């Protein structure tokens, strides 16, 4: 950097006398600036002053590295880049423009999307950024970045750079499978090393993105007017996951698509154990819409895919054999669970080779699929002495040069290491939050071992389910079923064609009676949508026997809304939706259950009688 600084200094010497000359020649007020311009300027200053209060300068490794972040809640949750927090590990120091240095802990990481959530400690009234809607951002809109370029914020004051939005819905390919920037915002506001993880604001001071990447190429790692920010709407989708303390994965459809000569997006391969396959997607199908967006190019499809977390169910429209299908598809993970852990932990991230890379999944494509120039993550460590970025490598100060920070005693309670988690503390926090909100309606731990549910359908007959501690029995219209709880549950999916309704109800009873601590392995997944329902739901994942079940809780009321019971991987779950909650003896019981399996409704159950203290012999 000596050269660069030298050049600027030389300019300075040449220019300063000229500027002084101008100033003396022109008394103040000689230039008549129109009032609207002055007003606009004043407004801009105020917006920037307000917005920059939420900016965080991250100092990792005893000040040897760092980057930027932005606080998004009053209690100090802050967004940053995975590649910024990674070298720091569990604990880092963060400064804010108020002149204070705060301790912060890692909450969750999203290595694929290059996002990390951290939590600053010590206040519950942090200044925080207001979220914007990045889908409303237009090319040509003003925007500004706030951050810690070149680690200049040693005086705790962040740097503001101003620019316009140069592009939206940009796709920047990953390095391997990590650090993929899908649907990102391109800006000519200066994004330099150290800006990584910091906020990109719109002209109103709303948070529209997290800066993290730039195109640099041969001019060295300083801004050349091309920076990229992860869109805030993508992060909104992941927000529940990012609060979960987990190592979060992105999604794949389980199918490969490419553009054909007619500009259609065609499926060229489908995994047979993918949900997409089970929903009817086949080779040759034309993708029409995905995730609520029309699909016109393979890149557009990849862009949309990049904004959704693993395990979400997302609307997909496709045409096959002339017929249109509108379905919800459950997305698979980009990585195997072990694979993601390995990649997220300490393995040096491969820097994109300094040569053009093939376009994403469009082999031999026409010019629209031309190789892109190499894009690079902004190094998180701008000018460290020992770990200066080497060309072609991401500096990973977890390697030579790293100094482990000593975690202060008062911070230690906020950190719970556990395999598979970025910080298990936060998973427990939300698991308990969700469970406490649910049991606020009345706890089920003191109900009997056997529950009996009875319905008298209008068409006659009797429906009866008895949930016991040894077995589950069910009598339905024209069907009987039972489950021996001492045997492999995944093999007993009665009644037929239900996907395992009796097992699902057993899992429901087990969770309600035992709670997450006694149930087995229960963790907080984050938030996810339910097809046909508004909003997002808190999800607890519970593993018992070979069965994995997802419990969906309504965040405002705390009610259990649905269970998905997966008897195996690669098969459809039995879905039970709970409605019509009514009180019996101080507890809220769902008096209506809607059961789905695959693409269809299996049955509607409307209970006339629920006995939470039935005798086991009622099963007969």
């Amino acid at each position, binding site marked *: 950097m000596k050269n660069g600084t030298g050049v600027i200094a030389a300019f300075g010497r040449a220019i300063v006398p000229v500027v002084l000359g101008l100033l003396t020649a022109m008394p103040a007020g000689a230039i008549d600036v129109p009032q609207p311009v002055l007003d606009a300027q004043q407004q801009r200053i105020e917006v920037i002053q307000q917005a920059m209060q939420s900016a965080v300068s991250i100092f990792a490794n005893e000040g040897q590295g760092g980057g930027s972040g932005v606080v*998004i809640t009053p209690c100090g949750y802050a967004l940053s880049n995975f590649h910024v927090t990674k070298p720091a590990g569990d604990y880092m120091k963060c400064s804010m423009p108020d002149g204070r240095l705060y301790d912060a802990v890692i909450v969750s990481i999203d290595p694929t999307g290059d996002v990390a959530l951290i939590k600053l400690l010590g206040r519950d009234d942090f200044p925080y950024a207001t979220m914007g809607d990045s889908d409303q951002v237009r090319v040509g809109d003003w925007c500004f970045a706030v951050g810690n370029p070149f680690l200049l914020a040693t005086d705790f004051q962040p740097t503001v750079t101003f620019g316009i939005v140069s592009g939206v819905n940009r796709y920047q390919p990953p390095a391997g499978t990590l650090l993929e920037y899908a649907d990102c915002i391109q800006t000519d506001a200066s994004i330099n090393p150290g800006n990584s993880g910091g906020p990109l604001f719109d002209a*109103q001071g709303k948070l529209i993105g997290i800066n993290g990447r730039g195109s640099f190429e041969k001019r060295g790692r300083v801004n050349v007017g091309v920076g990229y920010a992860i869109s805030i709407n993508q992060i909104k989708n992941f927000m529940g996951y990012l609060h979960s303390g987990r190592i979060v994965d992105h999604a794949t459809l389980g199918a490969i698509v490419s553009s054909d000569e007619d500009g259609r997006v065609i499926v060229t391969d489908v995994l047979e154990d993918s949900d997409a396959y089970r929903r009817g997607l086949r080779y040759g199908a034309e993708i029409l819409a995905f995730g609520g967006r029309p699909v016109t190019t393979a890149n557009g499809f990849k862009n949309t895919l990049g904004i959704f977390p693993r395990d979400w169910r997302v609307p997909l429209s496709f045409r096959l054999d002339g017929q249109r299908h509108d379905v919800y598809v459950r997305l698979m993970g980009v990585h195997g669970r072990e694979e993601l852990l390995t990649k997220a932990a300490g393995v040096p991230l491969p820097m994109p080779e300094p040569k053009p890379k093939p376009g994403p999944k469009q082999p031999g494509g026409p010019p629209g699929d031309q190789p892109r120039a190499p894009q690079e993550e902004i190094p998180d460590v701008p000018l460290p002495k020992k770990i200066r970025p080497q060309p072609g490598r991401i500096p990973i100060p977890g390697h030579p040069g790293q100094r482990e920070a000593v975690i202060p005693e008062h911070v230690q309670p906020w950190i719970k290491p556990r395999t598979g988690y970025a910080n298990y503390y936060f998973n427990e926090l939300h698991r308990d939050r969700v469970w406490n909100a649910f049991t*606020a309606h009345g706890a089920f731990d003191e109900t009997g071992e056997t529950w009996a549910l009875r319905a008298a359908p209008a068409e006659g007959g009797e429906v009866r389910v008895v949930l016991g501690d040894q077995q589950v029995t069910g009598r339905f219209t024209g069907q009987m079923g039972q489950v021996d709880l001492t045997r492999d549950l995944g093999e007993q999916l009665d009644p037929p064609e239900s996907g395992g309704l009796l097992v699902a109800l057993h899992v429901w009873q087990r969770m309600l009676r035992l709670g997450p601590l006694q149930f087995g392995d229960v963790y907080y997944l984050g938030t996810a949508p339910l097809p046909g329902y508004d909003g997002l739901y808190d999800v607890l994942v519970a593993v018992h026997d070979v069965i994995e079940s997802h419990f969906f809780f309504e*965040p405002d009321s705390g009610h259990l809304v649905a269970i998905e019971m997966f008897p195996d991987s690669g098969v459809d779950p039995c879905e039970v939706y709970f409605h019509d909650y009514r009180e019996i003896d101080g507890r809220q019981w769902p008096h209506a259950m809607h059961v789905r399996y695959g693409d269809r409704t299996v049955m509607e159950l409307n209970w006339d009688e629920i006995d939470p203290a039935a005798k086991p012999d009622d099963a007969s």
Partner: protein
Amino acid sequence: MNRTSPMRTFNAARFPSTSRRPGSVCCILAAAVLVGGWVTTTAPAADPTSFADVVAEVQPKMAKIYGAGGLRGLQAYQSGFLISPDGHVLTSWSYVLDTDLITVTLADGRRLQGQLLGADPRIEIAVLKVPVEEDVPYFSLDLAEDLEIGDRVLAFSNLFGVAMGDEPASVQHGNVAMKTQLAARRGAFETPYDGPVYVLDAMTNNPGAAGGALTNLRGELTGILGKELRSTLNNTWLNYAVPIDQITDSVEAILAGRTLPRSVDDQTPKPAQPWTLGLLGVRLIPNVLPNTPPFVDAVVSGSPAADVGMQPDDLILFINGRVAPSRQNLLDELSFIDRIDPLHLTIQRGIQLLEITVQQAP
């Protein structure tokens, strides 16, 4: 009826209201609020100072150009823009166009094969034609505007090849820092163009940006973005655009067909005794490719070419004002020129452009 369909909108109000237990950690509440609140979006107040409307008007006129390259840091793409409703595209004259297969991607994602109509290496521009069936949006060169120092500008280009398929071009903003002659010389900025340029304070001239459009804040065309240019003196990069008035004559000549190479079956009558390479005293590099450029391999001593100082490795760009993109084009063109007439050659030697005239000894 308690029967409900899960496909119906979920109604939280159906549940009895509950008071939430106070969390032991302040953030539990905040996180929950966040969970409930983040799906709502508010439409941002329209910013009257946004360039979004102007940008949206310009974008349909932009084009992305794909051709030769892709090796050793040479990008196989550059930028361009439509200058006629019939599909004429103005772009930068570069190695990217050294191929039979030039593909032009219009703003709507249409990929069309571009035909090189002509070029002017002296100002580093070229004109392509793409087949379009209907009128397309375009910049009229006649309506181009001048800029003054300090004027604000928008630069549209496909820098770094960021915009793929139907993605719109990248847009940057800046100011005219200087109007000056480009100090093109060996050891400084190595380019054949030494005419007037707008020097910009934005980093517009990135890989792939050459041929992009520079507009004023009303979206009116003012210049064409130049190539990447680095001073070999201090390694600084220059961001510049060539004013449109510098190129209109050349574009006019190209559009009129005056610069096109003539093929052997052209109807123009041929002289009985035309110029030949042997007469000129030049040997070109062998015809190894379909479009081998006319590089001089050797100059016969004592020949007319030697007299005017032609050298090995000279690249013949123009012959009597017509572009000679290949060795074959040069040979064809020679066959139209009577050996009693002078031969005007534009030659590239290194970064220099030389104009030479060869006359047969009487």
